[in-house]
């Protein structure tokens, strides 16, 4: 990343900050002109946006693709759900445990009676888990697709585990039918509104924190790890430490998101943390524009809003749609929604290129032969390869 790029980035950031403010303004005023149903939906999407921020930190900025963020979302969500479940059962055994013939509350459920413990657990459990997984993988230089596959297997393993442990985690039904959160009824409009704004505050806070990190020295190292990990190592930094840090950060964000998700949606089940939703989380970031924090928020909101509209109208089409979205965004639109403003310049570029296509064809042929098959694909801001130039 040379000096020229940096100034460009500085310039871009202001534009993005304006966009971020517009999004936050829209979210903050949404309860005024939207039905409570839609507002509740928006609250849910803000939780997703929080996850997307974390994924953007690790994928967009550090270049590690984690397909298992559903795990951290799920850990946070289950912690919160366990507390709510205990609140709902009034000191008795939670209903599903009674159905599975469990007689005594399992020991690991007991601390969740305390709301303070729950609030800490929501952040700490995902972070500790991420620290363990992260240090086991990154310190051993397991990276690239190997890490992707492992993270995917992780979400598969956890979901299978949760489904199998009917007696402890409610099995495939998950945890549901909550009544109160910290003493307030979950169904009352006031609680819902408070939760909505609470989520918004967390989203803004997380956005500010991530912006700060990205613009700090740590952020520079993260980007350097993404672009040239070995050079970072040769310069004396330990990429693994930074990777574990960013992995834990994104896990914490996902955990908080999960905890905010549960009281607003009223259910958490293994379907929400399995492979498919975990991979979908990545596409939110890709659609919005990776390595742009506001892009990930925008992507999460836009994709999920589209999802609910499309699947309300045509339930069958959604899967085609999201499938096509994956293909189209990665192949033709690697910059995501944020790069729309670059589109006119790009079109002009293509037209210019076409006029000088004859000489370009020769160079392209040479380039195509010279491609390196085993090189790590660098996540880069500028479109790479054939797909990008379309």
């Amino acid at each position, binding site marked *: 990343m040379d000096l020229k790029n940096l100034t460009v980035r500085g310039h871009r950031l202001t534009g993005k900050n304006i966009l971020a403010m517009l999004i936050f303004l829209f979210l903050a005023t949404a309860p005024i002109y939207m039905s409570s149903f839609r507002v509740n939906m928006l609250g849910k999407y803000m939780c997703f946006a929080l996850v997307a921020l974390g994924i953007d930190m690790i994928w967009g900025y550090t270049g590690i*693709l984690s*397909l298992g963020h559903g795990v951290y979302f799920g850990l946070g969500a289950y912690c919160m759900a366990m507390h709510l479940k205990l609140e709902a059962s009034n000191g008795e055994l939670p209903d599903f445990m009674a159905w599975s013939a469990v007689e005594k509350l399992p020991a690991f459920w007991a601390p969740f009676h305390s709301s303070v413990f729950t609030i800490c657990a929501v952040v700490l459990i995902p972070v500790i888990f991420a620290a363990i*997984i992260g240090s*086991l*993988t990154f310190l*051993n*230089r*397991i990276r*690239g*697709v*190997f890490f*992707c*596959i*492992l993270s*995917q*297997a*992780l979400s*598969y*393993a*956890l979901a*299978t*585990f*949760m*489904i*199998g*442990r009917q007696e402890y985690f409610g099995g495939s039904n998950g945890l549901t039918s909550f009544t109160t959160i910290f003493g307030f009824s979950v169904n009352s409009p006031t609680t819902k509104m408070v939760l909505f704004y609470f989520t918004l505050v967390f989203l803004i806070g997380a956005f500010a924190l991530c912006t700060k990190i990205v613009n700090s020295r740590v952020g520079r190292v993260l980007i350097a790890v993404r672009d040239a990990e*070995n050079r970072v190592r040769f310069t004396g930094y330990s990429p693994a430490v930074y990777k574990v840090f960013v992995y834990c950060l994104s896990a914490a964000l996902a955990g908080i998101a999960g905890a905010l998700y549960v009281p607003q949606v009223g259910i958490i089940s293994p379907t929400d943390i399995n*492979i*498919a939703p975990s*991979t979908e989380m*990545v*596409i939110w970031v*890709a659609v919005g524009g990776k390595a742009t924090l506001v892009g990930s928020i925008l992507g999460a909101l836009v994709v999920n809003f589209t999802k609910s509209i499309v699947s309300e109208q045509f339930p*069958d089409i959604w*899967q*085609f749609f*999201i*499938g*096509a*979205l*994956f*293909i189209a965004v*990665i*192949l033709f639109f*690697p910059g995501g929604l944020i790069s729309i403003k670059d589109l006119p310049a790009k079109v002009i570029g293509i037209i210019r290129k076409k006029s000088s296509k004859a000489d370009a064809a020769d160079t392209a042929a040479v380039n195509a*032969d*010279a*491609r*390196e*098959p*085993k*090189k*790590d*694909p660098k*996540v880069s801001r500028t479109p*790479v*390869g*054939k*797909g990008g130039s379309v």
Partner: protein
Amino acid sequence: MDLFLMQLFNGLSVSSILLLAALGLAITFGLMGIINMAHGEFIMIGAYTAYVVQNIWKAVMPENIFDAYFFAAMLAAFIVTAAVGLILERLIIRHLYGRAIDSLLVTWGISLALQQTVRSIFGPTNVSVSAPAFLDKNIQVMGMFAMSGKRLFILVMAAVSCLLIAVFMYKTKQGRNIRAAMQNREMAASLGVNTAKCDMLTFAIGSGFAGIAGCAITFLGPIGPTIGQSYIVDAFMTVVVGGVGRIIGSITGAAIIGVGGPTFEFFTSASLGKVMIFIVVIIILQFRPKGIFSIRSRALDD
């Protein structure tokens, strides 16, 4: 003990299916740097091809040669999935060479679309394929436990497929070209190997074997549009454990994942089995971050 042996044997047949699926994955990853998440859907397509062939066979052919449908189904599954693979390779995947992470996301999109296509055509409910009568017997081994003929057949099928791939890779000219391109693409290209053709062929063959794996899973139970997903994670774990680009790696990986899973499930519980396997894989990767068998290279950035 009998039950455990039985589990172990069942695990072996799962290993065989994983092996069939993982071979294609490992080779395409080694050769092109492509992670094909849609590979599971090739398995699914193979299974549905078997289903279609069976129904056509039932309608057209006389009843007494019904059992022979299976060989037609296997052939058809190979051809259909290889064709689908070929089309995908030409249309989409060749634009993604060397961009493993991008290819992973794109092929995930493809897999979602394929699932929905099949769901639209065949409906969301599971369908079942009846196995040929001569496989519906159990074979007693030493009076200890019974091996189901179907699972034995899957084992044999995997062994034969593996042998075929080994012969192709190590004894034919095309196989030599593929191995050359896998080790050093530019060098191979400058010595006259048509690497684009290698890629195409490898991808098609890899997909074809996934189709055969799909045929095999019709023996194990009913099939549905999402059946591929339940195998894809294990197939990828196989590749990760075994290493990329060597057949022996895939065999080892498949043995570990396929046999390890049921073994752990036997000693702990079904839900813990997957977690245990995950832990084992992480432990193995602590010592061999690139898998147990990997092609050695001095390059740092591979």
